């Protein structure tokens, strides 16, 4: 079974953030593997361990993205492809999906997977865009995966509960971070990753149509307007509990 996992390098959303002149500034230039992609990779590795095959990670991004490919290889992926950008292009999901679609068009695989969204933009568009461009059956927001008789059995979180979907090969699945705890690379894994092959692909080689340009633009960033804190009630639990219950009725009319 050949699994391609599309991964993205994102700024660490848990590192301190500032906004200067409408732009995001992070004191520590800390970049990490997108947590949702890490779950997708973990799941592909588990399936490979059970059923055999090969897992390849694909990353679109600037030179420093190599670190994140190495992380994927250290976790256990067999090889990597780096589609190299300058990082200054301001591509949106539509362009990323087209770059990936162009890369995959002459590739053979059973499944492509990726995170359901990335931690920095939280857009969640690229996965299903890629499926549509490659004309693949797809399932999003997977919380569980199994491989049975050539099909991927996807448990996805839907609006009304969990939907169990049989996805034939070739197909595409996007993963939630609720499905597993991605492995931490072992020292051995890290050593081995240095000998695993990483191929670089230039965007020019992907020959995407000149009409494929970003259709959306980020104008800037601003602080989130937070709610004003209300009143804190401290004291005898019995008294404050009754007081708030009465206020919810008399002040808010919500009981």
């Amino acid at each position, binding site marked *: 079974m050949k699994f391609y996992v599309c991964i993205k390098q994102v700024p660490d959303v848990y590192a301190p953030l500032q906004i200067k002149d409408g732009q995001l500034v992070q004191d520590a230039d800390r970049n990490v593997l997108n947590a949702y992609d890490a779950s997708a990779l973990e799941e592909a590795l588990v399936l490979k361990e059970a059923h055999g095959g090969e897992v390849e990670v694909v990353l679109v991004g600037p030179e420093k993205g190599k670190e994140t490919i190495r992380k994927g290889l250290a976790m256990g992926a067999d090889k990597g492809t780096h589609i190299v950008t300058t990082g200054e292009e301001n591509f949106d999901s539509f362009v990323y999906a087209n770059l990936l679609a162009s890369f995959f068009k002459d590739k053979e695989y059973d499944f492509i997977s990726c995170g359901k969204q990335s931690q920095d933009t939280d857009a969640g*568009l690229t996965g299903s*865009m890629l499926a549509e461009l490659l004309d693949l059956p797809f*399932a999003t927001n997977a919380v569980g995966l199994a491989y049975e008789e050539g099909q991927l059995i996807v448990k996805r979180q839907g609006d009304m509960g969990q939907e*169990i979907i049989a996805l034939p090969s070739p197909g595409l699945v996007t993963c939630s971070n609720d499905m597993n705890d991605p492995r931490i690379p072992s020292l051995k894994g890290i050593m081995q990753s240095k000998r695993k092959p990483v191929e670089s692909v230039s965007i020019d080689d992907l020959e995407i149509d000149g009409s494929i340009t970003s259709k*959306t633009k980020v104008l800037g960033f601003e602080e989130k307007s937070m709610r004003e*804190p209300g009143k804190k009630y401290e004291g005898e639990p019995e008294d404050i509990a009754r007081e708030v219950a009465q206020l919810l009725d008399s002040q808010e009319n919500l009981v």
Partner: protein
Amino acid sequence: MSTLLTYISVNDGKIKRSSLEVLSRCNELAEASGQSSAALVVDANAEQYVDQLKNYGVSTVYLIKDPIFKNHLNTPLLRALSLAVDKVNPSVFAFASTESSKDILGALAANKKAASLSDMSEFELTDNGVKGKRPVMAAKIVSAVEAEGSPVILSVRSGSYDVVEKVSDPAVETIDFSFDEGELKSTLKEIISASGDKIDLSEAETVIAAGRGAKDEKGQELVSELASVLNAGIGASRALTESGIYDPSLQIGQTGKVVSPQLYIGIGISGAIQHVAGMANSKVIVAINKDPDAPIFDIADYGIVGDLYKVLPPFIEELKKIKA
């Protein structure tokens, strides 16, 4: 004249409030810009929603009807939406942000080579598209974004706009649709519903959210009792859905459901940013937590500092007394 088209999410005879919020916003924008506002229902029994939609000011209701839409399946839904875009040629095609719309938004945009913006917290029209805001970086900050072209396909977070009622007499148009089940590439084998929970969390007027502080049996009992007194939906923090205490579909937060009830009561919830991203649009927030420094108190209207096991019994008793 061009059209702002709103996709109406429905479930079992009822229109989801979140899509009425989006429709109300589109009505307002259409009126201000001299465009028309239309609604699209895609369902096995699409026509049953026309009467309800008469209360929300649309000029046309488009229906796509087929038994295949009984359950969510992305292949036929995409076909239907693509057909609706061809037929209506909207300037904006707006969705409430639900798991079903998240499933297909990107694919539809790629199919139509259209710009797409997901999970918007506000949006407005520009001369040649849409601009607005959306939370990013795990909902810690807001990004101002812009899209050009027609249609712009977008989704809106629940609770971003109020529902405004306005009676109208819309034209009703059925768009011809047929789908051969043989074209289904993936197949739906089963739906596992959330365990016996009858109140749809994302639609509930009152939501009780259980956090780590309420993870034992006694805590769960108190949460259930409070929910039953207030006729509330029960949600949970990620800690409690991951440990299997509550169904994963009940997770409130950036990676789970976004709720925007009239009343939210957090029980033993600390208020991690991931959780807050899913409930900060609630009208009134009550928090019960024994840690006076819990971040939830920074956004709570009523913050009760105390042990939930001591606070909840008299709280429930008082509410029962008021209701009696």
